[in-house]
């Protein structure tokens, strides 16, 4: 028998690369009671890495412009480093900082990919007149030491994350040494928060445009929700806290307190979680804050407003957790509900922690999935609630633990109601299902479905045309299904949108052309999408498409989504969004005229190159369309209408949507007091064309 040496070991690629890191941030490694839980091992999906680390999704470039120096790049494939699960956590080693940002960034990316059922693509460099081959951004860049401030942000312009470091003036001098250096790149929550901004920008690039008070607040809250629940999905972190509960059955309070502690370790980054609860001044006990519906009506500052959403989701999580552990507590307390004095048994701790981690994982997945069901522009918290419910109903038929009710109840208690629905129930919150009633047979010809549900809102032609589009999308789905290379996915998708017009080969019209030819002036399609597919579009301040008839529109984020639910339900959807913009001149609450915006969205002139008239501003409408490839249906049309749907229904000349215009105008041109923060008031340039919105948002 010849001995097997490692060299000749014919193994498979390892599934993970284990990397040690902080579960919170370095300050907790200084406390005896938390040091044990602060060091955890991140299991990052294995990939080939260059020193940096530079992988498939991210590249860490450690340039410190404040001193004009590069720090040595870590090589995670180094034998010594591999042998010990990555570098030892250390504040004084910049190479560990690089490892930490990489580990957390990849963990977050994988959580998103798992929930969304597709590969993450970063937002492209579109709109900047770069050559087509330079549009695709393969890697997000991460600068762990980019500035000297208690700040970290995602730069949409540079597709980079910038992390700062600063000298601390700690509130508690026993934890941080005064004037010691604090690195934001060492905090799990900050890294997860920032990379979520980047991922969300890749799915909804217009969410950087503050068109209502919820938009920027949503960006902040969503990033915080991901950071928070990702944290809770590490069971080891929770065990420690649950151990401390001892006889107290109000374990949920401890989780709330923990959630807030995650956030406060570095400066006041955790202000978003203030709404979860507070320490009672008299009893010194942490208690959840009673939701106040007034807040959602009056609070306009993005962080404070975002904290309402964070608190709502957290409350939903607690209800879910409570219902999941009810049986365990009954067993452990012999049905009395009262635990014995003293430490609770370690097995129970394990089980409780696992239930909490599981619930956190579910909530995280629900929250992430929902972003596919959101409108492409102008999101409100109410839209997001509907998206959560709809996304969940699609994949989990049997909600036996009442997750959805937990969400609805938590939102309701905070006065967050979606626009335009009459009752607050699971069924009414779900976006209405569309049924076009046609499907393609195997030869590609259209035939009526037998089980037609008789949706009379659309006429037969429209239904048939939609079915043709559906067929085209199915081709797209078939082609993209097995492509793993993200670059190929990007360019193939692009081809399906714009079409393929190469010399010597048959021309293949893209989605843009197909929609345009079929629906340029279709009242039905206008009603469905809320967009100006109407013949008087030019009178409403919309440009004509440069290549086709009809109003110009943009197709965004065509994507194939494949998900498998807990009961084996499989979803095969193709999703894309449409947006349109119109130039409106607005005075004293009324439209006084229109102008056609420049084809270049960044220009500050009209289509003809004239300056934008006084009182003129751009107004956008948009719609997310979800097609089901299996049933061949257009399933949902989630719309922020640019036109007034009543004017269509009443058979009048189509008009623009005054309600939305007025709301956007009031928000963007209201009194300056409702700006983001004083930093923005002093150094910003209004809400239009914020090139670094997150740099402003994260100023404290």
């Amino acid at each position, binding site marked *: 028998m010849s001995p097997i040496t490692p060299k000749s070991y014919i193994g498979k690629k390892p599934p993970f690369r284990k990397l040690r890191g902080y579960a919170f941030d370095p300050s907790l490694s200084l406390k005896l009671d938390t040091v044990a839980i602060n060091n955890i091992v991140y299991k990052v999906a294995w990939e080939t890495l260059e020193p940096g680390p530079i992988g498939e999704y991210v590249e860490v470039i450690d340039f410190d412009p404040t001193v004009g120096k590069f720090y040595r790049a870590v090589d995670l494939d180094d034998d010594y480093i591999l042998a010990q699960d990555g570098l030892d956590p250390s504040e004084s080693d910049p190479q560990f900082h690089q490892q930490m940002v990489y580990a957390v960034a990849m963990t977050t990316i994988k959580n998103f990919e798992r929930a969304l059922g597709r590969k993450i693509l970063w937002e492209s460099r579109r709109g900047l007149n770069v050559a087509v081959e330079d549009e695709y951004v393969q890697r997000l860049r991460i600068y762990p030491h980019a500035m000297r401030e208690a700040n970290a942000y995602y730069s949409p312009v*540079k597709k980079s994350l910038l992390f700062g470091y600063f000298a601390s003036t700690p509130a508690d001098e026993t934890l941080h040494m005064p004037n010691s250096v604090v690195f934001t790149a060492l905090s799990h929550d900050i890294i997860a928060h920032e990379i979520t901004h980047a991922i969300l920008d890749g799915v909804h690039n217009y969410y950087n445009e503050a068109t209502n008070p919820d938009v920027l607040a949503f960006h902040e809250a969503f990033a915080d929700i991901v950071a928070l629940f990702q944290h809770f999905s590490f069971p080891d972190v929770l065990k420690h806290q649950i151990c401390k509960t001892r006889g107290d059955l109000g374990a949920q309070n401890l989780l709330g307190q923990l959630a807030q502690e995650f956030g406060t370790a570095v400066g006041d980054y955790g202000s978003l979680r203030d709404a979860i609860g507070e320490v009672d001044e008299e009893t010194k006990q942490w208690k959840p804050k009673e939701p106040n519906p007034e807040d959602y009506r009056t609070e306009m500052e993005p962080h404070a407003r975002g904290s309402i959403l964070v608190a709502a989701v957290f409350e939903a999580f607690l209800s879910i957790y409570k219902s999941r552990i009810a049986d365990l507590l009954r067993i452990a307390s012999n049905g009395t509900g009262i635990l014995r004095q003293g430490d609770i048994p370690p097995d129970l701790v394990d089980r409780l922690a696992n239930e909490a981690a599981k619930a956190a994982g579910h909530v995280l997945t629900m929250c992430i999935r929902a972003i596919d069901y959101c409108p492409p522009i102008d999101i409100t918290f109410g839209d997001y609630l509907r998206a959560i419910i709809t996304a969940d109903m699609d994949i989990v038929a049997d909600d036996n633990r009442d997750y959805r009710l937990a969400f609805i109840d938590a939102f309701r208690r905070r006065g967050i109601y979606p626009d335009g629905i009459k009752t607050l129930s699971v069924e009414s919150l779900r976006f209405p299902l569309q049924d076009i009633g046609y499907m393609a047979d195997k030869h590609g010809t259209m035939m009526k479905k037998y089980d037609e549900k008789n949706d009379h809102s659309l006429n037969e032609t429209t239904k048939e045309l939609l079915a043709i589009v559906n067929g085209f999308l199915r081709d797209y789905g078939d082609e993209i299904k097995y492509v793993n290379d993200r670059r190929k996915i990007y360019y193939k998708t692009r081809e399906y949108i714009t079409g393929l017009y190469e010399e010597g080969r048959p021309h293949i019209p893209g989605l843009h052309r197909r929609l345009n030819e079929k629906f340029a002036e279709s009242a039905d399609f206008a009603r469905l999408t809320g967009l100006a597919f109407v013949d008087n579009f030019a009178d409403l301040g919309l440009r004509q498409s440069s290549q086709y008839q009809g109003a110009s529109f943009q197709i965004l984020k065509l994507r194939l989504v494949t998900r498998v639910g807990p009961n084996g339900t499989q979803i095969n959807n193709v999703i894309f969004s449409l947006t349109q913009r119109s130039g409106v001149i607005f005075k004293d609450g009324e439209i006084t005229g229109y102008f056609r915006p420049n084809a270049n969205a960044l220009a500050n002139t009209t289509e003809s190159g004239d300056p934008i008239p006084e009182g003129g501003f751009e107004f956008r409408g948009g719609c997310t369309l979800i097609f089901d490839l299996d049933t061949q249906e257009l399933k949902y049309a989630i719309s922020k209408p640019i036109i007034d749907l009543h004017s269509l229904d009443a058979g009048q000349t189509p008009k623009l949507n005054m309600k939305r215009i007025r709301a956007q105008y009031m928000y963007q041109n209201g009194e300056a007091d409702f700006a983001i923060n004083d930093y923005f008031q002093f150094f910003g340039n209004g809400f239009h064309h914020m*090139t670094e919105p997150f740099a402003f948002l994260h100023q*404290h």
Partner: protein
Amino acid sequence: MTTQIKKAPKKVAARTKRVASVTLTGKLDRASIRMYCLGTGDCFVIKFFSRKTTRFTMMIDCGSCQGTPGDYQPYLKELLEYVNGSVDLLVVTHEHNDHVAGFAKDPSIFRELEIKEAWFAWTENPKDPNGHAQELLTKRTKMRAALQNAITAFKDRHENMKIGAGGDEDNSEFNRIMLDNSRAFINGLDTLATINLDGEEDTGGKPLPGMRIIKEILEEKNVKIRYLNPGDIVSLPNAPGIKFNILGPPTNRDFIFKDGKAGKDVFQKNLTLNDSALSVNAFLSLNNTERNDVPFISDYIAADEAPEAIYNASGNQWRKINDDWLSSAGSLALRLNSHINNTSLAMAIEFEKTGKVLLFPGDAEYGSWESWHQIKKWEKKGKDGKHLTECLLNRTVFYKVGHHLSYNGTALEKGILMMESEELAAMATLDRHRIAEKWKTTMPNKLLLQELIKRCQGKLFVMDEFQFANRPSHQLDPHTLGKKVYEEGLAEDESTILYKQYTITNL
């Protein structure tokens, strides 16, 4: 008969010491507060009367965020006449141009003016026994120099962007937006620089000329100077019947950097005044060829050129971040600004007989306001065991609005909401014609304005209500109060208002 009684003590007094004469006369019971309308900035003269006689004249600050010496001239001329060439007390609240610039515009006026005594905050004391003032001054000097460096570097970057933008036709629209935003940022920096810096480069962060000059003049004239601490209660022999209760600046440095919570402590949240020591260091060494305060040991500095090659690769130019960190200058500027605001000498002038209070907080921000309530000496010294500060606020009948109606110059729960007096009136030194550009975004704060109008029942006198959506004069036209209460002084050509004056009786 009455004339005899009145005259008699005067004669006695003339023979004995002058000080004694005043104490024998009636106590001060009336005050006229005159706000000079120099443009956004403070310049006040308060005359205290006993019956019809002026007994005591004090002046608080002299500055505006804009204006040439010529612009100041008519106002200062009127002021000199009004005080009859002499003030009993000059108070300089803090070192911001909108409070001290006037002293440097025409120093001869202040050389001419007789000043009997001058008060500064303890933070200005070069011989502070604890050494705290010196420490703060050093820090302020460093921050100023750093900010000046950073602004210069930021403007250089802006110029470079212009050059870069010209050469790049394809992205002209995008570059225009970047330039617009950069310009807006510079406007913000300039706004804060206008009041915090002396406008000249490479001064190494020296004190502002207004502060420097008034101190020189006081020294030349050998004027008695007092540096005051919170908790001090000063009575002056020539101002009988009133007490000057000193509220701020706080002696605990934590309060100088403290931040309030929006909606509870202040109307809008302010920046956390985190120590910006690291960026200050980096800005100070901006012009050094070798910048060496690296936060790691030198072994970690890359020896090979691999990372640099990726960073500088031709296709990656758009992702470079060489200059992005310069925007820290913004938060540094705000910190410096708040820090100096919180060194404001804040005082409550209290009338012994009626307990009524005139509140002059300078531009104190939340940290300072909060510290007033924690002055140890004053614990349980108020009515019903309350803290004296709370009582003083309860009895305030006149409030000089802090920081020109901005979001951070008036505390909420620990400030305006405690001012319960029915007689409350306020003056705000805001004029949106004459203001540093970016201040317009924060002044006036709508919610504060609304609250003040309500509490003062319209008796809020603003230097100029230009561009106010909610005008206090619409609630109450001040001219209807009668000349004995409210008066405006016009310039010779009657085109401009030189001052607005509010008189309180029954004090």
